[in-house]
């Protein structure tokens, strides 16, 4: 896989993901106008482009075993999505390292990679090729994906711009879960479709777990975390505040949302 290190790696066989003292920082441009014209105007006045360093994840250490479902909860800006991108290899760490044991499938931005002028089938092929699959492998999956997404007859060969938002989300989700991933990363992706599709999605994820595949879910739907996950972590401003059973983590998080209560050990962090 890309960017893989050549250094010898010791990874316990039972683990799908090992995160060691992970920190992720990145620089963002805080200027309202991100234009060359603005940069030149600033330079002419002797000013620099205004940037800010964001510490999205701070010294996070975590093991995720094969066949488990990990939920991540936290307020906006907690670093959940950054962490997911880092596990997927999209955003390399600034410090620490991530070891991933298995093929990853992601759904981190809904409607991912979809070109609205192309058909659903063409978009699925492009997404699969980008993830490193061969054309034959993807074509063998397209019917399965179409069936799972419950697209009306013939819609798989229609331009994606003709899809309803529900169909759009269902196809994106269906692509992610049907690429036979060892590790599935889902960021706010469980809201696609109606109640029956949600039930089907949950069943599919349970099947994946029975096959010893691993799922990491970021969701603000706390009932989903409770229902699907067998462990959870709570992230706050880049730091992992707590980890444990989903119901306990969700309770702590709800308490924080209600009265702003942080765990007692937060002061030490």
């Amino acid at each position, binding site marked *: *896989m890309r*960017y893989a290190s050549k250094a010898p790696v010791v990874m316990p066989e039972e683990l799908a993901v090992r995160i060691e003292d992970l920190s992720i920082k990145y620089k963002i441009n805080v200027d309202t106008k991100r234009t060359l014209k603005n*940069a030149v105007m600033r330079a002419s006045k002797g000013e620099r482009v205004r940037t800010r360093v964001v510490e999205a994840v701070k010294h996070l250490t975590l093991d995720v075993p094969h066949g488990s479902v990990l939920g991540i909860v936290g307020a906006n800006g907690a670093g959940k999505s950054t962490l997911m991108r880092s596990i997927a290899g999209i955003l*390399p*760490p600034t410090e620490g390292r*991530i070891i991933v*044991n298995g093929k990853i499938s992601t759904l981190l931005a809904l409607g991912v*990679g979809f070109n609205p002028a192309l058909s659903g089938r063409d978009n699925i092929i492009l*997404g699969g090729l980008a993830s490193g699959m061969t054309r034959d492998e993807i074509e063998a999956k397209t019917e399965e994906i179409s069936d799972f997404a419950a697209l009306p007859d013939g819609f798989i060969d229609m331009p994606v711009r003709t899809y309803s938002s529900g169909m759009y989300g269902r196809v994106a989700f269906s692509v992610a879960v049907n690429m036979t991933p*060892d590790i599935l990363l889902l960021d706010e992706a469980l809201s696609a479709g109606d109640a029956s599709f949600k039930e089907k999605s949950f069943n599919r994820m349970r099947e994946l777990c029975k096959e010893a595949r691993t799922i990491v879910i970021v969701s603000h739907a706390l009932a989903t975390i409770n229902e699907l996950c067998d462990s959870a972590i709570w992230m706050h401003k880049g730091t992992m505040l707590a980890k444990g059973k989903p119901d306990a983590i969700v309770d702590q998080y709800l308490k924080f949302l209600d009265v702003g209560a942080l765990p007692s050990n937060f002061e030490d962090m």
Partner: protein
Amino acid sequence: MPGPVKNSDFVSKIQVFEPHKAALPPLVPYFKEFWKRRTFATELARFADKAEYLDSKFGKVWLVLNPLLLAMVYFLLVTVIRGSSSKNLGLTTLAHILIGLFTFYFAQNCISAGAQSITAGGRLILNQAFPRALLPFSSTISAFQQFLPTIPVYIFVIVVGKHFFPTTQVPGLTWNYLWVPFIVLMVGLTGFGLALLFATMNVYFRDTNKLLTYMTRIWLYLSPILWQPSMLHGWHKMAIYLNPLGPVLSATSDVWINGKSPSLTIILGSLFWAAFAILFGGYFFISRERDFAVRI
């Protein structure tokens, strides 16, 4: 349904993500992944063309018609301003403008489509880990596919022109045409390198693409397309070598118009700019690739 997966099944698929020791990620795995996913770049180019011309039956004809009509306009301007002493010279001028414009358009299409490829590929970049250079590379493939049909159009114009003006300077079939693949490769590499540079700039400054429109127009006038390289003398010839497309467009004139091999300095100039564009553009792009996921 597939059977249960044993833990040992995962052993060969270990991936490690670590901080880059320098600005660049480890280059050997990067290029291995780039090569492994080359089909993605070719299919993306094919699908992008398909999407662009899906609603237009004659859309692709414009790819040839646009530079062809522009060549006619420039030809009229040049012959009116300069005045033509003979019809044979007129055909030579037309041939030079045509092949120059077609070649320049190849580079321009690489750069302009490549410059937008990262900002346009936003959702793909946010969701998938793959070498981002595949996106501008796909634009280069697309530009090459658009360039290919212009060659038969040029040949047709010249064959018809030579029929009416048999004493024209434009050469017939010669061995020097064997330089054409070299020229096309140099234009493609220079275009790809500059596409990498401008694609990165476009992530940071979203008006880069607007600026490119004006830049390429001025670049066109500064390039040996509306004028022949042989018109420059003395130190003015430096203008050819200071232009990233100058040497390769001179080589185009030598092969297609003058019927001779490009000089060694022209060949070296073309190689220099292609290598410089790839190395500089590649470094600029790959060293900032990590930022793309947070700046799009």
